[in-house]
């Protein structure tokens, strides 16, 4: 795709907080957001945290939260139409304040080609009912540009899942053993992967 043909789309993180930091390098994306989320969970857990560790958590939270916010950008062939045909990017009600494009969940008639050609999805989600899963039910494509994790709910009749890279190479085996048949597929070591992947359900 030529640069002039591109249309800028801003990908907000999977959870969509304002204090995201994405560092992109060859498609590899890391996010402080995940760590902020983990700190929140630790603080809200029943875990007995020592005063010393609590101070560390607070300090770390402050550091992560106040680093420069950089949103992740991608480009599509066609301009996306907010609140119409194409999928949700982000999900943050604060998004308009942050000049982030906000889309409603994908329309039921979304096709694989629509996804491939027109949209880059923010793959990993905290919430398994989020966009990526919905789309995956219809197509099997997602973009791990903000990779962190992916949990997909699948039908009982799905017995196998294969993962392909953009070149069509079967890279299922590179995803360790975190693929579970049944109600859930969870692919944890997407954490350090990048680029586009295709999922095929059998």
């Amino acid at each position, binding site marked *: 795709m030529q640069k002039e043909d591109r249309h800028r789309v801003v990908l907000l993180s999977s959870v969509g907080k304002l204090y995201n930091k994405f560092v992109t390098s060859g498609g590899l994306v890391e996010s402080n957001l995940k*760590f902020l989320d*983990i700190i929140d969970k630790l603080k809200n857990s*029943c875990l007995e945290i020592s005063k010393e560790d609590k101070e560390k958590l607070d300090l770390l939270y402050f550091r*992560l939260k106040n680093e420069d916010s950089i949103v992740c950008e991608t480009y599509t062939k066609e301009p996306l139409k907010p609140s119409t045909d194409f999928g949700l990017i982000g999900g943050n009600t604060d998004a308009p304040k942050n000049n982030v494009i906000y889309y409603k969940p994908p329309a039921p008639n979304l096709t694989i080609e629509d996804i491939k050609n027109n949209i880059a999805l923010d793959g990993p989600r905290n919430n398994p009912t989020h966009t990526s899963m919905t789309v995956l039910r219809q197509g099997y494509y997602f973009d791990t540009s903000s990779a962190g994790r992916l949990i997909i709910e699948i039908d009982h009749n799905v017995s196998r899942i294969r993962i392909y890279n953009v070149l069509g190479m079967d890279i299922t085996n590179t995803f360790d053993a975190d693929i579970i048949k049944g*109600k859930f597929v969870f692919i*944890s070591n997407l*954490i*350090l992967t990048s680029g586009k992947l295709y999922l095929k359900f059998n």
Partner: protein
Amino acid sequence: MVLVHEAKILIDGSLLMVVETSQNNKIQSLVVWDKDDFGSYEKSHDLSAYLSKTSNKESVLIPAEENPLDLSVDIVFFEVVSSEDSYNQARGAIYSLARYYKCMMDSLFKEHDMGSTSGCSINGINTGSIAVLIDLLITSFEQALLANDMEVVKIVLSRLDKVCKTSTDGCGCNSTNLTDPCNKFKQY
């Protein structure tokens, strides 16, 4: 319908169950399973003798010395059956993930050079991903529990255990069990 108000392992190892069924019915049986025996009635522990069976509400306290459950693990299961004609069964689990939260916290400190208290790291794996991985597994565990998929629950717990035990110092893996005050229950 059977509603479990409380299912808890107390610090001393006692088992507390507070359950209720609809008016004019009684709780008829209470069965518990150790982690690996769930679903097999042959391997279950029948605690029905502790039920009063006098009303639709039961508060049962099984003293530690009479509690048959192995509390050195992360999860145990229970089943309560009432005298109702339908929807007369409630199943659930009592679990504690405290040690995994501890492991997650130590990994987080290590990754961000916060002076980890126990130096949790795994050879060959980026320590930053360990915290995220543990978080993922905890989420997966809770979702599988909600979905009543005990096979996935066990698999996820096994992986959590593996992740923490693989760490160079076994961080957070020997600090707690089901008697941890953080244990909680889920009815499904």
